[in-house]
């Protein structure tokens, strides 16, 4: 109890005083910057974003820092830096909140700009910038601050390598996702990269990087065991086709340490698309 008490006092009193010596927020000429003393971590993210925290925690959230930029009396802008353990995790939570219909811009890996809001992905950071003000001046301020923050963070601006390898034909833009835990609701499918496709009907393809070829096969077998036995077809070349009561036919292929899959496709396109996906991960 004593140690807990000392630790709590340290976290709540000493750390905030020290914080600010190596600020992740850039200095911007003409703007006053006030960084919040509280650094939110996995223990107290609830205090900042309530129940939404649970989803962030699934993506190995590290911390959240917040600053407020003010220019005279005219514009106030809030900058929130959500840092995750890996770029894939940051991409994952970004993809969970992104909608394909947003107004996307090139900033960091990708961003989208709406009235009063600029959100973007930059390496291990998911950055949210917002203002109450409306009009061109406010929008320009968001963009300007966004660019400064992105540069200051100095992160790599690239999509996850696995996402880049998904086939281009039929691919729907801005539908890429990363699901860290329990893809399709199955606890044995973790770390899934997903992209939606359209060949007249919508379907999704996914890839999970396994630790080994054996692990990839184990995941496929676990899936087969999760559905009735007579719903499973084991095909040549590490391929499977199974009927899942929740999703219809799911086709799987184990390829060089990757589990590739296709969910919801029509019979005609299933084999063709899965082959394309598997081939992309044979190299």
């Amino acid at each position, binding site marked *: 109890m004593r140690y*807990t*008490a000392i630790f*709590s*006092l340290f976290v*709540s*009193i000493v750390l*905030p*005083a020290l914080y600010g010596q190596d600020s992740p927020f850039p200095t911007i000429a003409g703007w006053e910057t006030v960084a919040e*003393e*509280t650094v939110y971590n996995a*223990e*107290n993210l*609830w*205090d*900042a*974003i*309530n*129940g*939404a925290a*649970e*989803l962030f925690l*699934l993506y190995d959230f590290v911390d959240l820092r*917040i600053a407020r930029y003010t220019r005279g009396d005219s514009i106030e802008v*809030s900058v*929130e830096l959500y840092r995750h353990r890996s770029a894939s995790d940051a991409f994952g939570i970004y993809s*969970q*909140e*992104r*909608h*394909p*219909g*947003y*107004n996307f811009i090139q900033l960091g890996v990708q961003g989208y700009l*709406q*009235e*009063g*809001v600029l959100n973007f992905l930059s390496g291990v950071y998911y950055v*949210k910038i*917002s203002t*109450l003000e409306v009009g061109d001046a406010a929008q320009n301020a968001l963009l300007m601050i966004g660019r400064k923050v992105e540069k200051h963070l100095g992160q790599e601006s690239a999509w996850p390598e696995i996402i880049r390898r998904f086939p281009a034909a039929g691919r*729907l*833009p801005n*539908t890429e996702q990363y699901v860290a*835990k*329990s893809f*399709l*609701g*199955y*606890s044995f499918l973790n770390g899934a990269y997903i992209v*939606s496709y*359209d060949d007249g009907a*919508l*379907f*999704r393809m996914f890839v999970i990087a396994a630790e080994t070829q054996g692990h990839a096969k184990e995941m496929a077998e676990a899936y087969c065991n999760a559905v009735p036995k007579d719903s499973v077809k084991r095909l040549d070349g590490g391929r499977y086709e199974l009927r899942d*009561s*929740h*999703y*219809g036919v799911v086709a799987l292929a184990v390829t060089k340490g990757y589990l590739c899959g296709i*969910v*919801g496709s029509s019979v005609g396109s299933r084999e063709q698309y899965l082959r394309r996906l598997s081939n992309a991960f044979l190299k």
Partner: protein
Amino acid sequence: MDESLPQRRSINCMRTRYLDRRTFLRTTLLGGSSALLASATLPDIARSTARASTFESPIIRRKLGKTGIELPIVSFGVMRADNPALVHEALKLGIVHFDTAHGYQRGRNEEMLGEVFKNYPRDSFVIGTKVHPEEIDRKTGIPGPATTSKAFLERLDTSLKRLRLEYVDILYVHELSRRDAVLHPELLEALTLAKKAGKARHIGFSTHRNEPEAILAAIDGGVHEVVLSSINFKQAHYAEVKHAVEKAAQAGIGIIAMKTMAGAFHDREKTKPINCKAALKFVLQDENVTTAIPGITNFDHLTVNASVNTDLTMTNQELEDLALGQTQGGLYCQGCEHCIPGCPKGLPIPDIMRAYMYTYGYNDPESARTLLTSLDVPDNVCAGCSTCTAVCSKGFAISERVTDVMRLTKVPAEFIT
């Protein structure tokens, strides 16, 4: 597909804005992309009252205060799931109450539920959603001047569009932790108007810190019908929460529990997972709690949680597992004043113990400092005192705690967050 989307889900609780309808329709290729994962054939859902459980025992149901709603004791917190298949499966297992929020996934969470429920009879499910105030000071927990009834109701309209519903069963103000916030006139007006307009059958708020104060304020306010509160076995002030819940239940307020899993791990290093089923059962042992909304990520979690709906009995192993986690217990001073006669300096020990709980239980040293400053206790008051006979009926180390927490009065206010 919903035609409007939130432009921000900022923690600063700023204004909601909307996408232009044509832009949205033009650029949204997938529509409800989550519908891709919806089951090919909808489960054969009968009305909730006739729905059969896959478990042998009957589902345990409890009344939600005076709302007239009766719910299975286990519900579904959707904040972690963007998977419609889990919702369909939950319905099959007899779960009927789903909790979401305006801000989850920038609105995609509500959209997903709207996509799922569009084909179900409206009276076969219960939806609760939470709408945040326009502006709230995270340090004080008090709504700012930008908080208006109008802005709140605009957000509610957006939520209803996403959910494809004319009304929600329970509308909450999202996260209120202070009495002044619970009784904020603009928020009370917003809830009342929403109910009057038929957009919410029942109204309330959610709270996950300083819960007792917030819950007791709801009783005094007489407006809220439901409180969604953090309740779990690790809460240092669990006894105080339980007491407030009891009072609320007596006043006819329905209590729904959240954060029952207490963070999923006992330790920061995440090496000791909490027995989540036991934690859920623990909270539901209190019959004043109508139902709980554990977050559910996969079918395994769902099956485990749904099993609690028919069997609340705690096994010895589950009791042992929870005892492991009760490392922060013993912070709640029950105010018996048994200690006071033994203090030669006449210290207000219960108040100081409350400050200690604020600091180490609520992680709220600011409130603790405010309280301590108001008590006007001399410096180093326990130092060198050889005549102390104060004894705590709960066994608190009184002088040690007094000395520890009184240090807060020496810390400049600006260093306390």
